[in-house]
């Protein structure tokens, strides 16, 4: 390609991109939605997903069936302890219930989200040197809340058990009773300081997704729309390189996607308190690389969609599995193996993984080199496939 043709290709590309962006900025409603959409996504996903620190006032029923042992009711100490711990965390809202049958009824009605049963032999077991049994009743229709209650109660019971044990070993004259009862002191330490929330987990993923989707799905929609309205003919009948049409459109869509990416980035920091550990420059370089890896795919899809309706349907069909399979909202490690395998062939997985490492863990280029290589190779291969396919489509 001579210098002159390269120059005109570039100038036509810029013209087309500029035209697309002018149209975008004149569409006020569209512009508002462009900002509102990522905001909704952040708010929805970020606030709805339960984390231990945020759950409060879970309705729990308590059934005390303890019949005592020689008029000693050990369960009274237990419930007092429970109330005391809960008065600090406010995690549970405990109501007393007369029978275990009622727990089932109330869970079914949705009045309570779980229950605790203290069996009749509770005091007897403990005072005769056996383990006292405690039963946690869980609501199987709501596994996430059940798991939260389970974890919370187990923690409480564990702490209470430890203090009982410490009292029992006191006569042994040990200097540190806790060391006798619990020989291990387990501490958790993050790679970086601070305590990241779920927003820190999803913000990079949503950023990567929005930017990449804008080329993969925005491109087919934008081009098929021009074909349908007829304006595509106006460009096709001009003596320009066909490549500048697709490049110009891609550039326009990329700019749109990056704009959304910046909005999410700012919302994440300003509104949701996400702390960026790594280099901001690297964050945006990653987003651009994500776009690059999807351009080819976007062009291939464009070549096969004849009208806007198909393009939009295709967008929905591709977007949903991508969203959930690439670990944007949920860690891929919790998926079954075959879904993890699919996840491993989606470029979005690598982009959101790399972005998360940079934003949350402060990683640099060396730490995310595998992700980078995968994205570059995927992008290059897809573009190599896309260009001939697109040329054939344009000259039908």
């Amino acid at each position: 390609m001579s210098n002159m043709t390269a120059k005109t290709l570039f100038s036509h590309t810029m013209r087309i991109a500029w035209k697309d962006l002018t149209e975008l900025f004149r569409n006020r409603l569209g512009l508002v939605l462009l900002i509102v959409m990522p905001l909704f996504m952040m708010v929805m996903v970020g606030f709805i997903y339960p984390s231990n620190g945020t759950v409060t006032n879970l309705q729990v029923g308590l059934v005390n069936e303890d019949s005592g042992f020689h008029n000693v009711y050990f369960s009274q100490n237990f419930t007092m302890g429970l109330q005391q711990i809960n008065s600090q965390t406010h995690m549970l809202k405990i109501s007393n219930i007369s029978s275990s049958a009622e727990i089932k009824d109330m869970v079914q009605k949705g009045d309570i989200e779980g229950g605790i049963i203290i069996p009749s032999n509770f005091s007897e077991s403990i005072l005769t040197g056996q383990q006292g049994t405690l039963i946690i009743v869980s609501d199987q229709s709501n596994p996430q809340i059940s798991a939260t209650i389970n974890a919370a109660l187990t923690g409480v019971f564990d702490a209470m058990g430890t203090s009982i044990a410490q009292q029992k070993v006191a006569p042994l004259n040990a200097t540190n009773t806790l060391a006798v009862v619990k020989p291990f002191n387990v501490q958790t330490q993050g790679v970086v300081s601070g305590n990241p929330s779920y927003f820190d987990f999803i913000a990079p993923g949503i950023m990567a997704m929005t930017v990449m989707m804008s080329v993969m799905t925005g491109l087919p929609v934008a081009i098929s729309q021009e074909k349908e309205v007829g304006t595509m003919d106006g460009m096709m009948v001009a003596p320009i390189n066909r490549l500048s049409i697709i490049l110009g459109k891609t550039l326009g869509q990329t700019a749109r996607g990056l704009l959304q990416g910046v909005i999410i980035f700012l919302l994440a920091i300003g509104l949701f308190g996400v702390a960026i550990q790594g280099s901001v420059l690297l964050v945006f370089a990653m987003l651009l690389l994500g776009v690059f890896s999807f351009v080819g795919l976007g062009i291939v899809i464009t070549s096969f969609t004849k009208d806007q309706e198909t393009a939009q349907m295709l967008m929905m069909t591709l977007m949903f599995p991508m969203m959930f399979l690439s670990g944007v909202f949920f860690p891929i490690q919790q998926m079954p193996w075959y879904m993890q395998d699919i996840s491993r062939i989606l470029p979005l997985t690598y982009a959101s993984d790399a972005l998360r490492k940079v934003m949350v863990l402060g990683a640099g280029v060396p730490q995310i080199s595998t992700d980078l290589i995968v994205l570059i190779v995927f992008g290059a291969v897809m573009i190599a496939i896309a260009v001939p396919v697109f040329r054939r489509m344009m000259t039908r």
Partner: protein
Amino acid sequence: MANESIIEVKNLTKMFKKFTAVDDLSFDVKKGEIFGLLGPNGAGKSTTLRVLSTLARPTKGTATIGGFDIVKDDNEVRKLIGIVSEKMIMYNRLTAKENLQFFGSLFNIPKDVLTKRIDELLELVQLTQWKNAQVGTFSTGMRQRMNVIRALLNTPQVLFLDEPTLGLDPQSSVEIREFIRKLNRENGTTVIITTHMMVDADLLCDRIAIVDHGKIVALDTSANLKKIISGADTSIIKLNIPNLSSVLIEKLQALKCADAVTQENQTELKILAHGNEAFDNIIDAIRTNGGNISSMENLQPTLEDVFLHITGHQVRDSADQKIPVEHGPRFGTPQRRIR
């Protein structure tokens, strides 16, 4: 060199899967001519235009414009031509000026030349005062004028017009026709126009190719085409029969001398008939079947009659009425047309 050909079409064929839209067309268009492709919708006129204007590739055959091959030298061809599509080629959210600047810049016209050209063109169609208004706010007539001048940005030698008066009110249609004629006369622009409107073809075109089912069935000047009918001792008879019935129409259709019988309205019939005794036979047939003739007229042939005579069906027969392009709401969704 009045007879120099600017477009030469040889055995041009365009197929979509198994459907042959354009079937082995061959014709020449002379420089400075207004050439019409007349035929019903679906006859292959628009496809022919798309192939000639490099928007679609021919399946077989070749064509040259200004000596350039439409496939091999497509970009050279594009520099010579302008196309006014049946669809409006413009962006609703851009202003008139921005639209023209955008499309003009794709032709590598130097900026100062382009600016001057845009002002001239806007002036030419009296849109100067609207040049900074978004075209989404324009009326259908204004949009069509925009659509035409967009095609003239590169001062084309050949202008293709696909159904340029479709969906326009009579006033705007007249304006567009006047404009095309002026362009042809003053700039010597060669014009190829497709239409299913007989008036357009008759009033505008130097030569007309009648197209049916992808083939040219007749090609000549309007006057010569009409002679096909007068020369073939065919008469066009218009009858007014107050008690017209379907039974009567059937009887008339069965007559040997009647080539075609069409019902114009509740009481009016038009019969294309041949032979010396055609009048007698038709009158006899009506009388014996109880019809009253209130008036009878021997008409001059129109292009419609020529079409009917050659193809055996009316132009509008196979034409599912096209929906006129609507004027979209200001910030509405882009218009969609059902094909």
